[in-house]
């Protein structure tokens, strides 16, 4: 445990040290060295917790109101700490290449690394702190430090706007947590997590309301609909290394929070379980629908994070349902799917963000409609990006399939139950996850196909080239993990055993061994699959030997004046699908033409709206604004009025004091 805390401290100190280093280059290098050093300190503890199921704890006495606080590193915390710590190292490597762009520029790299270090260390503390007040402090530290990272390019107005939006969303989420924690603190008389168990596990209205407050609070961080609106704003604004950390790692702390509360609440209430399941399902659908309509790579990836949070949430909901109906196999498959998908999403989403960052640095645009043919300029980046895209679409032999498979199978197991409502919800989830999966495929074939394939739609300012080693290396490392998890899933499922044991300790071994053998047979199937691909490939080589292979232009039906502008664009690619779901992805089209005798210049502008934001968020905001304008007269701008406030205040104080005397 001491090593763990030294690692946490090292991340923080590395950030502090960069303030005193003058050369920008050295700041990156120092931070990278510290991040690698922190791995050496942190990882052994995490693995000993995950492999042997150990829990480490430390106690600290703080001054009031925190009091005695427990810090515990149990297997659940270790999984998330593993993502955080590994993600930090990869982002540090990536930033070594990516931040080169900003060396000697107008933005402060010290601020970047200081808040980067602070963000990582506060996230690592979030998963171990077991005292509500200390928890809220580190939780807020995490939100605030990530806010400063989002507004790194602080002279751009849209960046500042996005940052503020993010900060406000985080505070709203935190306010729910504060309400829940203080209520619990009042009821139990202690701020320690362990003392909440009795209250949370009682299946009454208090417990349900408390769980809902926690779900909203943590769900805002994770990005559940309708609290997801900050993601597509904040992710694109941040520098890429940070976007990857935020999307791949930070939103998982919300998932961690929800799982922690479930651990404390014991057997969940059935209706809550259904609610979590359905909210997650809606989150998945809304996320991917909006993703498909995006043109901005990073916005696309942000919405796809919302979709994946939905899938993780479906796993959580499934686990809760399994627990509520006392079907251990469903419970285990659900939680396994949720936790595994959190890890998997970290792997492929970080990778996709890193790839998007390389594209952005080379082309200065995030708009895929202006890109195309990048695979010829940056083959390695493109193939790695494709690997991530296939993985996130959940296709077999890549890691996304492994976690989605657990959730699918858990839902299929629900059909065997004699409970009709469970049957019906499982069917919604079963076909709904298929819908999410196929829509992810629509989205990611669009993203990859339009940006990386074909030929450039607009000439590049300068010829794009492969990213530097520091930029590529994190992607290569992640792609190795994609295949290790994807083809040999038992490696990771083995280390998740202690985590699942926390959720259900009774007869887990038997259930777990059946899951284990299931994944072993999956590995066998994948090896057979790879073998078939290899054989078919050999057949192809055989038939192509000493054959003439001619190079010619793409067949154009005899039309001679083909230009790359005639290619299908991302918008046209997704149009038929978006027309099918037009109610849910409303599109605004503005056409500006001047009608003259001869066709004149015309402009067409299309923009998509987030349906869920319009339906759930904007009415609330409108109401709050209307309500608050009622008090606008307080700030009138007249000095006399303000002096009057001071006077009234003094009079009240005087009356109060005299009254007390």
């Amino acid at each position, binding site marked *: 445990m001491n090593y763990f805390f030294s690692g946490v401290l090292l991340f923080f100190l590395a950030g502090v040290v960069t303030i005193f280093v003058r050369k920008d280059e050295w700041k990156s290098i120092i931070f990278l060295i510290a991040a690698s050093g922190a791995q050496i300190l942190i990882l052994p503890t995490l693995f000993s917790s995950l492999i042997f199921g150990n829990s480490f704890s430390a106690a600290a006495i703080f001054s009031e109101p925190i009091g005695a606080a427990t810090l515990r590193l149990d297997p659940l915390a270790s999984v998330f700490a593993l993502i955080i710590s590994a993600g930090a190292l990869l982002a540090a490597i990536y930033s070594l290449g990516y931040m080169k762009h900003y060396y000697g520029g107008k933005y402060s790299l010290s601020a970047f690394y200081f808040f980067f270090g602070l963000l990582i260390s506060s996230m690592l503390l979030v998963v171990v702190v077991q005292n509500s007040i200390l928890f809220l402090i580190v939780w807020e530290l995490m939100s605030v430090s990530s806010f400063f990272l989002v507004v790194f390019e602080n002279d751009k107005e849209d960046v500042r706007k996005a940052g503020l939006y993010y900060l406000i969303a985080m505070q709203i989420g935190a306010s729910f947590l504060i309400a829940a924690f203080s209520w619990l603190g009042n009821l139990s008389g202690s701020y320690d997590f362990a003392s909440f168990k009795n209250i949370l596990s009682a299946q009454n209205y208090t417990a349900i309301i408390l769980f809902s407050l926690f779900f909203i609070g943590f769900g805002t961080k994770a990005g559940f609909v309708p609290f997801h609106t900050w993601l597509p704003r904040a992710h694109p604004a941040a520098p890429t290394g940070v976007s990857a950390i935020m999307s791949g790692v930070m939103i998982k702390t919300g998932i961690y929070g929800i799982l922690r509360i479930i651990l404390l609440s014991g057997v969940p209430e059935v209706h809550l379980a259904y609610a979590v399941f359905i909210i997650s399902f809606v989150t998945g659908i809304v996320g991917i629908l909006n993703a498909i309509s995006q043109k901005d790579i990073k916005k696309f990836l942000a919405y796809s994070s919302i979709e994946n949070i939905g899938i993780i949430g479906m796993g959580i909901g499934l686990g809760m349902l399994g627990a509520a109906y006392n079907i251990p196999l469903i419970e285990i498959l659900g939680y396994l799917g949720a936790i595994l998908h959190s890890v998997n999403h970290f792997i492929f989403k970080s990778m996709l963000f890193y790839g998007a960052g390389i594209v952005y640095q080379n082309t200065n645009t995030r708009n895929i409609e202006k890109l195309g043919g990048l695979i010829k300029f940056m083959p390695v980046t493109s193939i790695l990006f494709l690997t991530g895209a296939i993985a996130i*679409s959940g296709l077999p032999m890549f890691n996304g399939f492994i976690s989605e498979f657990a959730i699918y199978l858990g839902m299929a197991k629900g059909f065997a139950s004699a409970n009709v409502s469970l049957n019906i919800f499982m069917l919604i989830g079963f076909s709904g996850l298929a819908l999410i999966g196929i829509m992810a495929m629509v989205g990611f074939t669009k993203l990859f196909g339009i940006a990386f394939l074909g030929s450039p739609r607009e000439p590049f300012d300068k010829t794009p080239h492969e990213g530097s080693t520091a930029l590529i290396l994190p992607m290569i490392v992640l792609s190795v993990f994609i295949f290790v998890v994807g083809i040999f899933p038992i490696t990771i499922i083995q280390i998740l055993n202690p985590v699942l044991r926390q959720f259900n300790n009774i007869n887990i071994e038997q259930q777990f061994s059946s899951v284990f053998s299931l994944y072993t047979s999956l590995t066998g199937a994948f090896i057979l699959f790879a073998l078939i*691909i290899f054989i078919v490939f050999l057949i192809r080589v055989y*038939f192509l030997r000493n*054959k003439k292979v001619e190079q010619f232009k793409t067949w154009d039906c005899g039309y001679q004046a083909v230009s790359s502008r005639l290619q299908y664009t991302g918008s046209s*690619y997704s149009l038929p699908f978006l027309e099918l779901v037009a109610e849910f992805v409303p599109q605004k089209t503005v056409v500006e033409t001047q009608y003259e005798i001869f066709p004149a210049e015309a402009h067409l502008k299309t923009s998509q709206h987030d349906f869920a934001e319009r339906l759930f968020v904007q009415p609330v905001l409108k109401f709050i604004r209307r309500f608050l304008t009622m008090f606008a007269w307080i700030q009138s701008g007249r000095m006399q009025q303000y002096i009057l406030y001071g006077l009234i205040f003094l009079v009240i104080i005087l009356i109060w004091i005299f009254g007390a005397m």
Partner: protein
Amino acid sequence: MLTAIQILFLIFVPFLFLGIINRVKAVWAGRKGSPLLQPFYDFKKLLRKGKVISKTTSIIFKIAPTVNLSSIIFAFLILPLPSIGSVISFQGDFILFAYALGLAKFFTVIAALDTGSSFEGMGASREVTFSTIVEPAFFIVIGTLALLTGQTSFATIINLLSASAGYTILVKILFAVSLIIMILTEGSRVPVDDPNTHLELTMIHEVMVLDFSGPDLAFILYGSGLKLVLLTSLLADLFIPVNVVSVYPLIIFMGIIFLTSALIGMIESLIARARMSHVPQFIFLMTALSLIAFAVVIFFLRGGL
């Protein structure tokens, strides 16, 4: 011995399947028609040829036909066949089945986008759009079968299905119709798509493979034939006792496959291609039918909703 003959037979069935469709259409139109094994001769011819590839394309274009064909072959190993059973069978294998076909689709689509042709982009766009309707409906079908039998792998589901009787016949018929809609959509046949029109704006699947030639095109054509047979086998599986080792199930199985191909030929002769905007409505019929089947199962199995 029976198994070996069967495997050999399966390798040739895709050609026969396409041949029968063409023959039925020809007879219906009053022509004599090409030989039944014409698709096989085309296949052999294509394998012998060299190829022309577009300068715009990249490695994606080269590997796509291989991945496409391999995924469909792999999916075949999961499906239970009479007297063989399934080569790969475990709990939840139908998910792998659906996702293996998804991998095939993913590569076909990005290979189409790789050429930079607007035709192929259009085909790719339509292909994925229609898939978004077929895929969830297919999962409703699988889910209902799992509900009906309480099992989670193809082999056990099919085994139990042949034993059950009564109202299941209604469910089976509903599923048969749903699966035929799926076959028409995924196999790109009329009224969803017309495999004969290579160069009209109505086309979907055929246009995605415009730029392929030589052995690659042979792989793709064989792949699409194999996919038709794959989905038809799933349909046939609903009606035959798989676990009985004798010749009869095999005969019924093959009979259903050839009947289906004749049926597809008939549909193509009788119905015109649907307007592009009407195709989703046609495919939604599959969703509706499978939902009805689900309701029927819930009603009879669980004693009311």
